[in-house]
């Protein structure tokens, strides 16, 4: 291997994927559907969330195609509205929220803390089923006509004025919410109670810290959206009046409840990414993360502060100016821990020994895009500015920068990073790098013009738009097609690599986490014996010592 990578693969001639591993343990569909193995559940999540991503992505593709021309000549307004509603609902509740905890969290948390499984394996399977049932409601809703409320379900529009399948959509979200709750409970309990001997809190990988923070949000915020979805359904079915201005209800109350969940939920969508990035940056610069404690605590700080800022989505919606002030101030504060993280990651590179493997490229992409998205988030949190840009494409650009540029990039980084662990095989490195670059370019081309559009005043959720905005929209659409290639490429080569990838060995990245100390793919019970953690996280010196020991052990037997 050239010097610009740290991959160290076993000798491909002799290497074999271990016969006994969690994938080969049992066979047959049923063994998957009834599994309690966290790793298999992770794979189940990977398949289902990818499925939903394709649906959401297809909706996005249609949205972008439609916006090529200002006159809305491809689909009707109703269809357009259904497209972006479905896009938002699927992407948020059925793709981005479950993906990181469901796939990487499930797979890695027990491995990283040296446990045999998550604390409540049955509950874990149950949460996957709840997720699937919720997803079925959404599919049902889409097949029988869709929903056109936007993902925010603004009352009284969603309760009294539209006549699409709001109840089906709300029911799906309600059920999927319980899936999130159970996953959150599971992770918190696992992290508290299942750590291997010697694995103290400050020896945990930062990945674990950020998933812990995510789980706090899951547990405490999700029930509030559950109740607000119940209220929406009841309001539609029997007209309880809580959100109905003609009965004296306040439609804004719904938004309070909705955003009490949905703001923290946006951090559910970024915190896991931050955890992944910490791992990746550390590994590919061969350095302990700069300021471990600060990064660890900033995850928790983000989770805690995220609960105090929800009304920044309602600045001009009729909340009192005084509370707008309060919420704006808190939004400024919640941005600080993110800033700390970004700077600490950058500082981690200092005096490192950096290589640019695919995960690292994604990680760099993440930092840049997340910083842009985050800084525009701060602009939105600034009261005066929000008046002008709220409900415009500026918002759309902001959140795609953090969600797609941020979290999806981070997920791709994670997926590539742990792919050898999950499957035992490497993906093709050069294609990987290519895809990362395509994704970065396509992404910026898609969403940067939207900032300009937004400041020009183009409202979001617009099917028709004034012709002078067309040029920028065409740019954006062309970017989206590049973006689509950027997603299709990894999908293809990752599937290819399942068969033909190079055999990875236990620790192709020479990473320090416990998950790399076991075989790839791991055994069903993860470790042959429960490991003992006797060093700090990211202790590359320990790793070197260990591999030297290993080599010495091997050497005599070879002679």
């Amino acid at each position, binding site marked *: 291997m050239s010097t610009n990578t740290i991959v160290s693969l076993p000798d491909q001639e002799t290497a074999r994927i271990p016969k006994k591993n969690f994938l080969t343990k049992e066979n047959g569909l049923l063994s998957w559907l009834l599994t309690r193995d966290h790793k298999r559940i992770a794979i189940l999540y990977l398949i289902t969330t990818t499925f939903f991503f394709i649906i959401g992505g297809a909706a996005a593709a249609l949205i972008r195609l439609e916006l090529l021309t200002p006159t809305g000549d491809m689909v009707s307004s109703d269809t357009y509205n259904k497209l972006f509603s479905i896009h938002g609902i699927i992407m948020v509740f059925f793709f981005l929220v479950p993906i990181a905890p469901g796939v990487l969290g499930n797979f890695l948390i027990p491995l990283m803390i040296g446990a045999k499984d998550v604390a409540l394996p049955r509950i874990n399977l149950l949460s996957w089923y709840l997720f699937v049932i919720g997803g079925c409601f959404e599919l049902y809703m889409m097949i029988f006509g869709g929903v056109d409320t936007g993902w925010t379900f603004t009352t009284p529009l969603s309760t009294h004025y539209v006549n699409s399948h709001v109840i089906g959509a709300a029911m799906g979200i309600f059920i999927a919410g319980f899936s999130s709750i159970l996953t959150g409970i599971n992770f918190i309990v696992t992290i508290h109670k299942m750590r291997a001997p010697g694995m103290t809190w400050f020896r945990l990988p930062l990945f674990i810290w950020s998933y812990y923070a995510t789980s706090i949000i899951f547990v405490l915020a999700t029930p509030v959206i559950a109740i607000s979805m119940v209220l929406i359904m009841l309001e539609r079915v029997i007209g309880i009046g809580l959100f109905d201005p003609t009965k004296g209800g306040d439609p804004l109350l719904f938004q309070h409840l909705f955003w009490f969940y949905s703001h923290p939920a946006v951090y559910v969508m970024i915190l896991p990414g931050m955890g992944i990035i910490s791992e990746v940056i550390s590994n590919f610069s061969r350095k302990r993360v700069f300021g471990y404690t600060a990064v660890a605590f900033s995850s928790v700080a983000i989770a805690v502060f995220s609960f105090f800022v929800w009304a920044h989505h309602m600045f001009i919606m009729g909340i009192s100016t005084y509370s707008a002030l309060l919420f704006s101030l808190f939004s400024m504060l919640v941005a600080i821990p993110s800033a700390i993280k970004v700077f600490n990651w950058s500082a981690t590179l200092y005096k490192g020994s950096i290589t640019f493997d695919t995960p690292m490229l994604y990680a760099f992409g993440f930092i840049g895009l997340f910083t842009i998205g985050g800084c525009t988030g701060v*602009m939105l949190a600034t*009261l005066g500015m929000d008046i002008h840009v709220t409900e415009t494409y500026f918002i759309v650009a902001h959140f795609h920068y953090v969600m797609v540029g941020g979290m999806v990039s981070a997920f791709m980084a994670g997926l590539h990073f742990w792919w050898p662990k999950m499957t035992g095989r490497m993906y093709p490195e050069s294609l990987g790098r290519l895809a990362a670059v395509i994704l970065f370019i396509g992404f910026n081309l898609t969403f940067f013009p939207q900032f300009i559009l937004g400041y020009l*005043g183009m409202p979001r959720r*617009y*099917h028709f738009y004034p012709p002078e905005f067309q*040029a920028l929209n065409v740019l954006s659409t062309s970017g989206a097609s590049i973006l689509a290639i950027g997603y299709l490429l990894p999908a293809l080569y990752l599937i290819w690599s399942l068969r033909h990838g190079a055999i990875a060995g236990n620790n192709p990245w020479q990473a320090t986490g416990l998950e790399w100390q076991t075989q790839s793919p791991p055994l069903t019970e993860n470790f042959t014996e429960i490991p003992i953690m006797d060093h700090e996280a990211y202790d590359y010196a320990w790793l070197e010592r260990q591999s030297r020991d290993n080599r010495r052990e091997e050497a005599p037997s070879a002679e």
Partner: protein
Amino acid sequence: MNHISPVIWQFPVKWMTNFPLFPPEASTIAPQMDALLFFMVLVSLIGLTVVVLLIISFSILYNKKRHPVAEQIEGSILLEATWTIIPLGLFLVMFVWGAVIYFRVFTPPANAMNIYVVGKQWMWKIEHPGGQHEINALHVPAGRAVQLTLISQDVFHSFSIPAFRVKREAIPGRYTTVWFEATTPGTYHLFCTQYCGTNHSQMIGDVVVQTPEDYRKWLSNSTSGVSLAQDGERLFASLSCSACHNARPNARGPNLANVYGSRLTLSNGQTITADEAYLRQSILNPSQHITQGYAPIMPTYQGQISEEGVIALIEFIKNLNSDYRIQQTLNTTDLPPESEGKTPPAAQAPAAKAHATQGRVKK
């Protein structure tokens, strides 16, 4: 370049010649908003540049080829404190600056002229005090503060004029206000920015800013002949409001002359300013706030008056600045026979005054 298909060629030409990157600044608040934007973009760019520069330079300096062995560094409290405190300071500056602008946009000056806006799926209905009605268009004079009082008849809408950098939600069941002072005559976009159902994207219109002379001309050409207040007066009579609010000593309801803008004492001892929102509440939910000295006998008119009707009534009440006006109203309306002309209006004036001041202190 004509060897490229002219059909395709026309698109880039069209786009390049009509390719705005920055919205026009057509109100007094716009430059202030843009200044804030530039400040924030600058700060963000500096932040971004620092981060990107760090990453790039470290990537070059410490890539594996050049720097094969990493040096472990724990962290540095001093550095970390720096990059906590500096952004915090910058963010706080943004917060204060933004808050100042927010208050400016939502606090109309006292002399602003008021225009009512009613949003409904999917159109904007605009009511000028002079009785000019517009749909999906708004004419305003340049150089004059204009206050919009918005309400929605059904769902949330949002009244957005990007060129003015102002935007305000029209909420069902509640008035909201926003104001602006247009500076440059011209025609600007008006959007509904809050998603409101199927034809949300067609709930658009034009804001026409005119020079004061043109505006005056427009006003006189498009008046329907009946001002909003006169409309209200008619309603006031036909809904028999005047049965109770008639400025007589035996009137069952308080005198409404000069009530707008005054401070009222309620029966529970609270005081409240009679603004548009209060007047609206008094008509639709009269029992919510009972004026001191009166019985809660006023019936609710919820469901009986349209939002435009309420606006007309409010405009009428706002313009009631003397008992004389009320009595004028009385003369033009058919009162129930038993109260008709029992007491000559003139004789009642002092008593009515006393009555009227009950529970009311002029601000």
